[in-house]
């Protein structure tokens, strides 16, 4: 019960591999990218004294003659096909507004959701009136980016049984730059829980659903209590995610699982202590290196 109090410490950067500090493509604002005038100036750069200079901290990307800097600390810039986790902020006419950690709220059109019942039909005025029964303000959803508007706002869709309203579980909000792009962002982890690693940095942890239960178009949520064992796994995964994010480790199923394994010798609530966090992240990085090499 006694509260754990300590002096703050300067956080060390933990890296097993030395390569990160020698990477030439990582720049900070003011770094000269090139003094060759043959290149075009893209996002995140400006020309100073005929030299192309970075205006944000991030990774340099070159496409032919165009040089951009992709910032690392940023809001979510969605692309078509990205898996996102978001929260409904507003119910409007024929659309929901969704908070997805982007600069503008995303849109989920009534015509791009699977309505309960599953059958494909025209959306009637009645459907429009009962929109709040499907999704109301504060509800969490998983969805896919259908298109990007010219102002950068995203249009989402949930036209698949794997997307839809989220039930019981825990949301962890992290930086979108930390989520690794992969073939699938839905994982049933062997430790007994499932995770949706949204490209927008929102991660959803939930108990693995039992038998592929009767799907009601993703709108049915079970309010049965989750077992204590599942809870412990979910809480441990949550703290692992935060530990990995604190030390800027790329998030994907393997890194999360290795981190989970490394944390098993500690109590769940101790994982967030700085020294335990360091230890676990070091172990995870070692395991990841071994697996690569």
């Amino acid at each position: 019960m006694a509260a754990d109090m300590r002096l703050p410490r300067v956080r060390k950067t933990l890296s097993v591999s030395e390569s990160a500090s020698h990477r030439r493509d990582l720049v900070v604002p003011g770094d000269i990218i090139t003094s060759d005038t043959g290149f075009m100036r893209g996002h995140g750069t400006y020309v100073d004294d005929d030299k192309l200079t970075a205006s944000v901290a991030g990774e340099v990307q070159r496409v032919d003659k165009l040089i951009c800097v992709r910032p690392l600390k940023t809001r979510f810039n969605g692309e078509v096909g990205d898996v996102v986790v978001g929260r409904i902020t507003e119910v409007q006419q024929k659309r929901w507004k969704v908070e997805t950690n982007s600069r503008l709220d995303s849109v989920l059109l009534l015509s791009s959701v699977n309505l309960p019942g599953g059958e494909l039909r025209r959306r009637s005025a009645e459907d429009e009136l009962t929109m709040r029964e499907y999704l109301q303000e504060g509800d969490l959803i998983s969805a896919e980016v259908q298109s990007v508007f010219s102002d950068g706002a995203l249009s989402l869709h949930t036209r698949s049984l794997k997307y839809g309203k989220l039930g019981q579980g825990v949301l962890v909000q992290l930086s979108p730059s930390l989520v690794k792009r992969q073939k699938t962002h839905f994982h049933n982890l062997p430790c007994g829980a499932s995770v949706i690693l949204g490209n927008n940095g929102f991660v959803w942890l939930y108990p693995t659903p039992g038998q592929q239960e009767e799907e009601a178009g993703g709108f049915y949520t079970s309010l049965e209590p989750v077992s204590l064992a599942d809870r412990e796994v979910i809480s441990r995964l949550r703290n692992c995610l935060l530990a990995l994010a604190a030390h800027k480790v790329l998030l994907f199923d393997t890194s999360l699982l290795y981190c989970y394994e490394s944390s098993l010798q500690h109590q769940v609530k101790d994982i967030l202590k700085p020294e335990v966090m360091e230890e676990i992240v070091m172990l995870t990085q070692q395991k990841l290196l071994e697996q690569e090499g």
Partner: protein
Amino acid sequence: MATAQVSEAEKVYILHGIREDLRVDGRGCEDYRHMEIETDVVSNTDGSAKVTLGHTAVLVGIKAEIGKPRPMIPNEGYLEFFVDCSANATPEFEGRGGEELGTEISNTLYKVFNNKHSVDLQSLCISPGEHCWVLYVDVLLLQCDGNLYDATSVAIKAALFSTKIPRVHISTDDEGGKEIELSDDPYDCMRIQVENVPCIVTLCKVGHRHVVDATLQEKACSVASLIISVTHKGTVTCTRKVGGGSLDPESVFEMTEAGKRVGKALHAPLMKLLQHEESLGRKTPKVGFLG
């Protein structure tokens, strides 16, 4: 006030978790998140402290100024509280948005310190009826992630501990006029006895149980909370109920008992840490705000 949005299903998950004494971050119902405390972080104050609790960050600065004692209590100094909510914490605080929360917290602090034992106010008196030290306690909320009251009270206790008030002497000149003389030695200063300074414990009623150090998400699930300030001996100096919901007398009693127990346990590690930091001396560099 800063709030988090939580969906119905998330609420159910949090509620059931608390019922089973396993919260979302793995803590039990009476556990605090780990706390980082540093004193003397602002050089132009007489005492200051920064406390981070999860993502909650509070900075407290204390300035001592010479003022006139209150007419009813001529031989005591006094404390003034001011709470400022930085718009960095949440955009809602922009402009005058944080004022309501700020006055609410400062009013609570006045109540918490409104007794003879918390701070020895008589030691702040310079000459009865004429001059006394006024301690301006300025609280700045830098980040909000729940449990502002507890973090603030710990920061105030730490800041009071680090406060150094210059020693003054009163000399009488030939015509009977009094003059205040400041000591030449900058290290000749007076410390404040902080042993009896209370810490605040906020207990949130969630479902049928109560939790301490609630996060914003847990706060969103609770209807009412009880704020209790407890000294190291377990004496309660102030209780307040906040939130729209009601508490039945039995749970108020239970929560007070739990608050006393938890509050008492806060003081020992805090004092130990403050003394440890002091023993490190000036040579160890401060982490400050960029660590």
